[in-house]
Structure formats: structure tokens, C-alpha cells
């Protein structure tokens, strides 16, 4: 647990950080976000005393960082800087193993550890361990930077725009990777970014900073739903309702889906059906193949009100084009809904069999919380 109490940092007359108090619980990912120059990096660097606070107290698990020997403090905190800063004269494995080396771990053990970490971050040790930094792509270097921070298994990670220098596509890959790691490792993480989507994606809590002060400290969902003031409203943007949907996972909103198998389409079409549910059609092995669509003899509304019997026909669907996975976000579900012009999207397992569906009214209800 990291706790700031009334912490300020002044450079002469300029106040970079102005009396900040905050708390990051153990195992939590806390994202610092805000406009350039607002004091994010300064806040982060005071934790491992790359900068010393001008006033106030920072504690880690109740112990004042100012009272700890600075080298020991830093070795117990993983630190990922924006520009990566791999040591150019050392191989990848020597870079990763640098903190264990400082801690006096013998060579064999620390090289084994470096291989483990390469595995962990998804790079093949046999291929990468002897490379030098100038032989790595930007994304690979960023990953090695993260591996290096994790090498001594520190309980705390400080990450200053760790994925800043990679293209959006690779950044998403790195974020996914990070979430997977974090689920397994449960580190206490302070993470600086100025990419709101990144914050929404990975944060347990978000701290929005402006001019060295905390404007709002809340979960991403709360910040998007209830911006504290006009500054936050502007910062998160007009599409915050949409963005907020990415805070919710499909798996929490699955409803039972009506489904029939392909042989039964004709029989169903001849039956009595008053409401208009979405009916999914399964092919062989239960794989989604289409959806039923009502067709009427005369044109739409008149025919319906006359109580004419509906008949149906199947429209073929490609499961990978319409379905979402349980782990997907509600934003993705909405986007699929809009794309298909339907009132529900099928939730599919890995074999493209229907687990259930997500319905438009549920999404609308979710959005009622947005003020």
C-alpha cells in the first residue's frame, strides 16, 4: 500500500505537485492521468525518491520512504521509465538481471530468472537473451523494460508512460499482456499515461491531476459517469458514455437466448408467436448459422395490426462477424449491435456456440447512470 499525505514538490517558485493526498491499495492498478506538465511524473518519482518531496509524507506499507536507505528502497520498487533506458552495452538478459545483480544474486540464478521473465512477457528466451538493445524493436524494448522492472519480484511497480512510444495496435497488445501479467502477479502499480483509453482499460482507480492537484480520484467508470467538474468533463470527452461501456464486461450482462436448430425453422415459422423475440438458428454441432427474420404478406405495420400470422425466414450470419465473447466489453457489444441493426448480439464460446445474448435495453439502462 502506498500513501501520500499532503505531499508537495516545489521548484523555486513553481509548484509542480501541490499538497497531494492519495492511497493506492495493495494489488491495485492506480493510473495517474492529466494534461502535459500537470505533475504526473513528479508524483511518481517521489515514491522511489528519484525526487524528494518538498513537504508531506509518503509511506509504503506504513513506512516513511524518507527513512529507508535510498538504494534499498529503489531495488524493492520496479521502475519503468518512458524512454525505456535499456543499458546499450548489455545483452537483453544482463539488462533484465541487473537488479538481481545489484542484490548479489549469482550469475546462474539470475540468468535463469531472466529466461523466466522473457517467457513471462512472451518473448522466446533462446531467441532474445543474447540480443543487444539496438537489435530490438520499440515494442520489444518496452517489454524488456517491464521484464527488468519485475526481475527482483518487487511488490510495487512504478510505470511512467511505459507504452508511450509504440503504435496504437502494439500498444493494445502490450496492454493486454500487462493485464494478463497483473492478474497473475497482483503488484501494486502506479501507472502514468495521458491516454484515456489506456487508463480505462487497465485502471482499477484513476487519479486525474491538473496543475499539481488531484481533481478526481475514482474508478474509471465513476469518472466517466460522474465527472467532478467541467475540467474533467472536457478531459474525458463528449463520448464518455460510449467510453464508459468499455468498463463493463459482457459476461455480467448475458441473458438467455432463444435458439432453434436449422431443421426446425420451417416448423417454427408455421407456429403462433405474439411477441417478437430474436431467434438464433444453430447449425450442425450447435454452431450459430443465422437469425430468423419475420416476413409478412402485406407491408409491415398494417399486416401486423390485422393479426396476420407471421412467417419467418432465416438470414445467414457469420458468427465471427456478429458475436462477442464473454470477456469482451459492452462497448464492443454495442458496436456489434449497431453494425448489424439488431436488438441483441449473440454471446459465443470459442467454438461459436451460443452462450446467451446481450440486449439493447440492458445497455440503455447501463447508460442511465451517466449524468
Amino acid at each position, binding site marked *: 500500500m502506498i500513501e501520500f499525505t499532503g505531499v508537495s514538490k516545489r521548484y523555486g517558485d513553481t509548484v509542480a505537485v501541490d499538497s497531494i493526498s492519495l492511497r493506492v491499495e495493495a494489488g491495485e492498478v492506480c493510473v495517474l492521468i492529466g494534461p502535459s506538465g500537470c505533475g504526473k511524473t513528479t508524483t511518481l518519482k517521489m515514491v522511489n525518491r528519484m525526487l524528494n518531496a518538498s513537504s508531506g509524507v509518503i509511506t509504503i506499507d506504513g513506512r516513511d520512504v524518507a527513512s529507508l536507505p535510498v*538504494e534499498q528502497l*529503489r531495488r524493492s520498487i520496479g521502475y519503468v521509465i518512458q524512454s525505456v533506458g535499456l543499458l546499450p552495452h548489455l*545483452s537483453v538478459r544482463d539488462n533484465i538481471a541487473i537488479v538481481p545483480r545489484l542484490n548479489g544474486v549469482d550469475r546462474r540464478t539470475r540468468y535463469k530468472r531472466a529466461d523466466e521473465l522473457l517467457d513471462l512477457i512472451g518473448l522466446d528466451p533462446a531467441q532474445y537473451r543474447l540480443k543487444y538493445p539496438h537489435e530490438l524493436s520499440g515494442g520489444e524494448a518496452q517489454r524488456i523494460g517491464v521484464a527488468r522492472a519485475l526481475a527482483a519480484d518487487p511488490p510495487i511497480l512504478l510505470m511512467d508512460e511505459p507504452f508511450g512510444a509504440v503504435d496504437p495496435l502494439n500498444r493494445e497488445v502490450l496492454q493486454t499482456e500487462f493485464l494478463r501479467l497483473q492478474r497473475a502477479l497482483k503488484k501494486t502499480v502506479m501507472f502514468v499515461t495521458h491516454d484515456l483509453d489506456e487508463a480505462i482499460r487497465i485502471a482499477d482507480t484513476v487519479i486525474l491531476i491538473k496543475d499539481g492537484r488531484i481533481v478526481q480520484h475514482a474508478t474509471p467508470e465513476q469518472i466517466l459517469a460522474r465527472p467532478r467538474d467541467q475540467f474533467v468533463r472536457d478531459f474525458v470527452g463528449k463520448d464518455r458514455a460510449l467510453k464508459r461501456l468499455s468498463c463493463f464486461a459482457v459476461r455480467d450482462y448475458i441473458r438467455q437466448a432463444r435458439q432453434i436448430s436449422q431443421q426446425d425453422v420451417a416448423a417454427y415459422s408455421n407456429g403462433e408467436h405474439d411477441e417478437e423475440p430474436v431467434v438464433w438458428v444453430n447449425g450442425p454441432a450447435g454452431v450459430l448459422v443465422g437469425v430468423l427474420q419475420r416476413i409478412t404478406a402485406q407491408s409491415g405495420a398494417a399486416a401486423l395490426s390485422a393479426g396476420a400470422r407471421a412467417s419467418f425466414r432465416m438470414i445467414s450470419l457469420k458468427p465471427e462477424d456478429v458475436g462477442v465473447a464473454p470477456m469482451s466489453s459492452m462497448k464492443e457489444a454495442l458496436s456489434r449491435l449497431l453494425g448489424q441493426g439488431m436488438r441483441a448480439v449473440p454471446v459465443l464460446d470459442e467454438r461459436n456456440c451460443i452462450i446467451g445474448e446481450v440486449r439493447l435495453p440492458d445497455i440503455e439502462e447501463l447508460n442511465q447512470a451517466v449524468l
Partner: protein
Amino acid sequence: MGGVALLLPFIEFKPNRVAEGEAFHLWSIGLTWEPWLLAAIVLTALLLGLSGEGPRVRAGKVAVGIALFAATLPAALRAGLILVTDQTPFGRVGPVSGFWVLVLATFLIVEGSLRTARYSPLLKGAIRALPPTIVILALATGGLDSFAMVQEYVNRADRFSQELVTHLRLAAGAVLAAVTAGVPLGLLAWKRRAFERPVFAAVNTIQTVPSLALFGLMIAPLALLSRQFPLLRAMGVQGIGTAPALIALTLYALLPIVRNTYTSLSVIPDAVIEAGSGMGMNRYQLLRLVEAPLSIPIILSGIRTSVVQAIGNTTVAALIGAGGLGVFVFQGLGQAAPDLIVMGVIPIIVLAVLVDRGLAVLIALVTPAGLRKDPP
């Protein structure tokens, strides 16, 4: 070029030290098979030059280059033996244009091939050391005794080794002093912005003073000091001699060392330093694990420049009575004896080249693999 060389005068004969020389062509000396061997090697070199690229061709070129040198020298030796006979006991021979062009061709072929070759630094060093080794062998076996330079040497063997040692001591002492002062000065200029300008202004200014003038400038103040402080005089400090020479040489050697020390630190990215200390390195570990490995190769190449410069500049030290190989050069100038000048100059060049090559190999060895442009 090799072809031209075969047609140029190859060797010169003088009945005695100051007489006018007579030039001979390779073909007119009375040599039997040597000219033909040389011609064959030159032809091979031409053919290789036309046969494109590739590691085998390159290895062939290196071999031919060395062979050319190995054949040129004995040809000159035999020519000497033929020309200097019992009738001309004071006769001496000296190589002229044809010989030198052949040597130059050797150099160009070998260097040109080695430059792009992906050999290890040690192998390259060994290949480059071959021609000098051949010369030393020739000297040791007495084969070059009829050469004018060698005769000048034989007449002054004791004096020569004495001045050689003096020369080496002056140059080495100056560089040592320059390293001792220059590295800290470079560090200071880097660490404290306030010192950057004055330090560089000073060392740059020194560098612009012509070396002769700098030696001259030392005389007056040191003579004064020596007169004022008996202790200094007791230590041998005078207006002329070793002390002013050492000081002037040291001042000269300073610039490359200060400049490279400064540069070596300024090119280390801030992020690398931040990462190092952010991971918990203390001051000493940062120096040992980050700053030193990154900066030492650059500082060493500054020292390399300094040493080569100092070996050359030390020649001038002879003018203010500090001795060194310059003694022969200036004696030779005074007596209008070109061979004596050459005898002084050649060891200076050889020394400079040897030290330069040696340090190049050392630098290649201490440059971490991650920083090499073409890893082996």
C-alpha cells in the same frame, strides 16, 4: 600502379655519404629472377583486382599484398649486395621511387582489403604486423647493412638507442601527465557547467599555438622559476631541457583527452543514467556498470590521438635540448645528410604506427559488444 613501379628507378647508389647518387632500374642492376617474381606478383594482384568481391578474393588480396612486400625487400637487399663491392667500401645504397611505390602498393592492397573484412581485431592486428616483422628480420640478419640509413645507424648505434629511449620517455611521460590532468578536467567540464567554457577555451587555445612556439614560450618562465627557487633548480628544472619539453608536450596532449572525456559522458543518454539509478545503483555501481563501460572506449581513442601526436611532437623537443630522435633529424638538416634525417624520421613513424595500431586493437577489445557497429 605496381606496373608503373617496375619501370621506375628502384635503387640508388652513392660511392660515399655526401656524393651525388646514381639511380638504377630494377632490370638494370644485374638481378636474375627477382624482377620476374615481382612482375608475376603484380600481375596476380591485377587479376585479383579484376575478379570482383568475396571473402576468398579478399583473402587472396591480403596474401598477395604481403607477398609483394616480402619479395620487394629481398630484391632491394640483393641489389645492395651487388652494387656495394670491395672497390667501394664507403658505398651505400638507398631505395628510391620504384621501391617506395611498391611498398605503397602493398599498403594499399592490404589495408583496402582489411578495411571491409570481417576478421577479428586480433587477426587484423596480426596481419598488419607482418610487414614490420619482415623488416625487423631483415635488419637482424644484417641483410640491410649496405643501406645508407642503416649505415648511418651503425655509425651511431649507441646514441640511437639512447635517444630512442629519451624519445619514448618524453612522449610517454607527457601522455601520462595529460591523462592524469585531462580526464579529471573533462569530468569537471561535464559535471560543472561553469567550467565547461574556460576549460575548453584553454585547451583549444594551446592547440592553436605552433609547437615550435610553444616550446620556445616555455623557456623564459621556467628559466625565471629555476632562478627564483633553488629547490626546483636542484630537481633539474631549467629553461631548456627535459622540464619545458615535458610541459609543452603535456599541454599539447591535453585537448584530445579532455575533449573525448567530455564527449564520452555527454553521449550517455539521460534515460540510461536515470534507469541505472532508478533501479538502485549507488554512485560507485553507476560508474562501474554504466558510465565506465560506455565512456572508456571513447576516452581511450582520445588517448590514442594524443599518443600519436606526442610521438610526433617530441621530435621538436630536441630543439630545446631535451633529446629524442629529433636530434638526428636536426643534425641531418644541419649537415645536409638526408639519410640521417630519414634514420630519425622512420623510427618515429614506425613508433607512431605501432602505438596507433596497438591502441586500436585495445579499443576494439574494450568496446562492449552491444556498442560495436558490426559485431563479430
